[in-house]
């Protein structure tokens, strides 16, 4: 049971994972796959069921339904958990301990030998930027230092999969860069990282693949390129927007948003598929006798994706939620 999984086995695999609290489905048919050694971003608005999902993947919360496999086994198996690292969103630890005692306790729980611990603890303290401060009591640590100590605990026992739940929430900008470097270091060692964060720029910079969740379901998952490569957001500003023009634009790309509030001009947001569609938009404007003030292709980013996805699927999940009550 304790053998290392072969590299082809996903680090995380869930099928129709579900958690119902008092008749309300917090996680509602969540299906996702995380490959070994990849950094996976888990995104969603507040209350989307992200933390509950992480807790189910760690065996802290028992699923109401569906399947979950972590490192080829079930998280309720201690042998599986001995290969996991976890930084909780609420990084609260025994404040009467020193950082070294905290790491020693967790290392022993994880099954590290005493001689390994002696070598490993100063190493991880150095990695998270707490070198030389291990003998201080956690009660005297600042929030940022506590989060760093928690991160040290998460990577202490050489896990194959690390869950980081909002790992930079208490860190300053320097700390955030350091955490990104730690995550990249883990990836270089072949460790899979499950990053739960709503700092989109952070996720964008470090993640290989992301999943968007809302109301306990995965709306979309894939690599950054897969998710964003096929879409090019374009902003168009014209003096006036007539219905025929709007129809013509909609034939070229997907009209996401129109703004006709301003008397002087109208703004249109479109998603087009190809670069060649951009001059086609200009032609359409001219052909309908409108005057073109701006034509702005934008770089697709996670924030656009996030907002579009979350805004586009407002009630999609409510029938399912109702079904889950039965």
């Amino acid at each position, binding site marked *: 049971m304790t053998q290392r999984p072969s590299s082809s086995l996903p680090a995380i695999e869930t099928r129709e994972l579900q958690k119902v609290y008092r008749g309300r489905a917090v996680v509602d048919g969540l299906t996702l796959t995380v490959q070994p050694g990849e950094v996976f971003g888990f995104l969603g608005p507040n209350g989307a069921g992200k933390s509950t999902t992480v*807790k189910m993947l760690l065996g802290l919360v*028992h699923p109401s339904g569906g399947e979950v496999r972590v490192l080829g086994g079930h998280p309720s198996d201690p042998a599986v958990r*001995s290969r996991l690292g*976890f930084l909780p969103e609420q*990084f609260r630890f025994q404040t*009467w301990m020193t950082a070294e005692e905290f790491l020693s306790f967790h290392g022993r729980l*994880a099954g590290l030998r005493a001689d390994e611990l002696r070598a490993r603890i100063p190493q991880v303290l150095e990695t998270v930027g707490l070198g030389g401060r291990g003998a201080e009591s956690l009660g005297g640590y600042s929030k940022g230092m506590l989060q760093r100590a928690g991160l040290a605990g998460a990577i202490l026992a050489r896990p194959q999969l690390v*869950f980081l739940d909002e790992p930079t929430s208490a860190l300053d900008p320097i700390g955030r860069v350091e955490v990104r470097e730690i995550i990249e270091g883990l990836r270089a*060692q072949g460790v899979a990282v499950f990053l739960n964060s709503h700092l989109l720029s952070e996720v964008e910079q470090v993640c290989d693949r992301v999943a968007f969740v809302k109301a306990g379901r995965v709306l979309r998952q894939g690599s950054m390129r897969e998710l964003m490569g096929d879409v090019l957001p374009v902003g168009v500003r014209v003096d006036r927007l007539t219905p025929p023009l709007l129809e013509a634009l909609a034939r070229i790309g997907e009209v996401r948003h129109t703004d006709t509030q301003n008397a002087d001009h109208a703004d249109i947001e479109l998603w087009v598929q190809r670069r060649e569609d951009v001059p086609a938009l200009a032609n359409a404007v001219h052909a309908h006798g409108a005057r073109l003030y701006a034509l702005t292709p934008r770089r697709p980013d996670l924030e656009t994706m996030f907002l579009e996805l979350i805004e586009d699927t407002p009630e999609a999940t409510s029938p399912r939620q109702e079904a889950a009550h039965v």
Partner: protein
Amino acid sequence: MSDSALSTPQTPSFGRNTLLIAELSLREAVRKRLVIVLLVLTGAFVGFYLYGIFRLEGTLDQRAIDAGLDGRSISGLANAPIVYASAFGMYLVFFLGSLMAVLSTVGAVSADVENGVMQSVIARPVTRAALVLGRWLGFTIVNVSYIALVSAALLGGIYLITGFVPPAPLPAVGLILLAIVVITGLTVLGSTLFSTLANGIGVFVLYGVGFAGGILSTIGSFADSPTLVTLGKVANFVMPTNALWLGASYHLQNAAVLQLGEMARGANPIFGSEPIAVGLVLWACALAILAVLAAMWRFSRKDL
């Protein structure tokens, strides 16, 4: 890189993790100054009580001299005040020990869940059953050692001052310690079921049920009312700690004092005049074990 040279951690066994959690609980008790506060306050309590006994002994000696006697018999009725004083002292030890067992253990599991410490611990390869068992073991060691120490200090002090040794001090202290084990087990169970505050209130109410049972039994046998006696038995079954104390008090009284108690037909809710039933002792042991098993089972199913 040195990383790859080191082995993958081996999942520690259930027993090893249990001991590790117990050790953590012991260190926590020391580091949170629980142990030092207990020792200082207990030193004050035992010192105060023993000083009272010292003055009592002097008074009794003086009275014997005033009455023209050579001395007092340790086993006679003239020494009854000392016997009562030591038995009452042990009652205080039992009461304070029960209080302290509940207060120290009340958040054994729930407090760590409430303040978020538990999440990172449970994510480790430790089963929840091992965690609960380790917590119970650690707190039981603290509570039992504490009561054993206070009992030894009080009875030893009384012996040094007055020369009085209860007829069977070891069974008496043993029964008190068993009561502490039961209370600790029930408090750990409550700690997996309720919030810390609700648990504290709940266990105190249970303690009250046991005490009420003792009073009902006493009045029942004094007034010869079978109903009250039955109610008392039910209460003893639900919470046997008071019955354990009454059994302990029997071993603390010498023959002369016990005869006094029998003459009063046992009309004393604090001291027992007969030994405890073996069945009740076994039930108390079983209750402690069942409570811990139930706590292990309950916590294993809980969402954190």
